[in-house]
């Protein structure tokens, strides 16, 4: 079982390959879209590379859910995620760090949840599960 640091380092190298960014630009807090310029096609590329790199299976939508709320008014009201929506997000992405998002849960900020750290935590959980 690799340490968190080792996982982070591999995730970081994977992003260098997939996004053609310099390693310098990558920090644990970097957001994939905003900071590292990932576009929709890149998310699939990242999933493929993580699978190869870590020898794991990442089911569709598990790491990067494609459309969580589908405009459902129970989950989103006036461009903000409701309490119920937040609970749904946490259930779907237990590996996400929601603390900051919860303080201002605008739908348009959801993409900021997808950080390098989020991938690292997801992989760590995945490796722990597969070990048991």
């Amino acid at each position: 079982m690799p340490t968190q640091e080792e996982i982070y380092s591999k995730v970081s190298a994977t992003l260098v390959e997939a996004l053609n960014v310099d390693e310098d630009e990558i920090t644990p807090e970097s957001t994939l879209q905003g900071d590292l310029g990932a576009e929709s096609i890149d998310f699939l590329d990242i999933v493929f590379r993580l699978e190869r790199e870590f020898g794991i299976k990442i089911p569709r939508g598990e790491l990067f859910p494609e459309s969580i709320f589908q405009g459902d008014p129970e989950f989103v009201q006036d461009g903000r995620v409701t309490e119920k929506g937040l609970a749904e997000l946490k259930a779907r992405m237990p590996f996400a760090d929601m603390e900051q998002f919860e303080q201002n849960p605008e739908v348009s900020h959801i993409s900021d949840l997808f950080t390098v750290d989020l991938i690292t935590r997801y992989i760590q959980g995945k490796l722990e599960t597969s070990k048991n």
Partner: protein
Amino acid sequence: MRWIWIDTFLEFHSGKSARAVKNLSLAEDYFAEHFPGYPVMPGPLILEGLAQTGGILVGEANDFREKVVLAKIPTARFHREVLAGEQMTYAVDILTLRAEGASVAGKVFVGEELVAEAEIFFAHLDQARSQQIFGDHNFVFSGELKHLLGLARAQATPARSASEG
């Protein structure tokens, strides 16, 4: 000009790998301009040939149900120029094949010599951001490419040896 950049399949292993031939002929139009007196196949056209070989490999694996589009080329390297009169072999292996898309590794040889290589990443059109709606008609595989594959299968002796699909 036709838009078909492979001439025939040498091998086709469904869901795994394929090898195709591309002959470089001075009868091809673009050689007149690229370059006058020095007929070199443009690198991007070599990539198109690899993408066609890989695209049909990926498409066939899904029985041509999905519209396969070129989404990304993580790296392409051109080791030397390839000239009219030479014959290239495209060798493509599937790296990952999933419902959402696929990636392949391609190598291009002249004889034994590696002249170019690229990794190519395909998305399925419905997964890409295209807003278009086309119904069931699969325009991507309606043409010459699919015909070539049929030809390879028909020629295979014993039956299906050139195609395990």
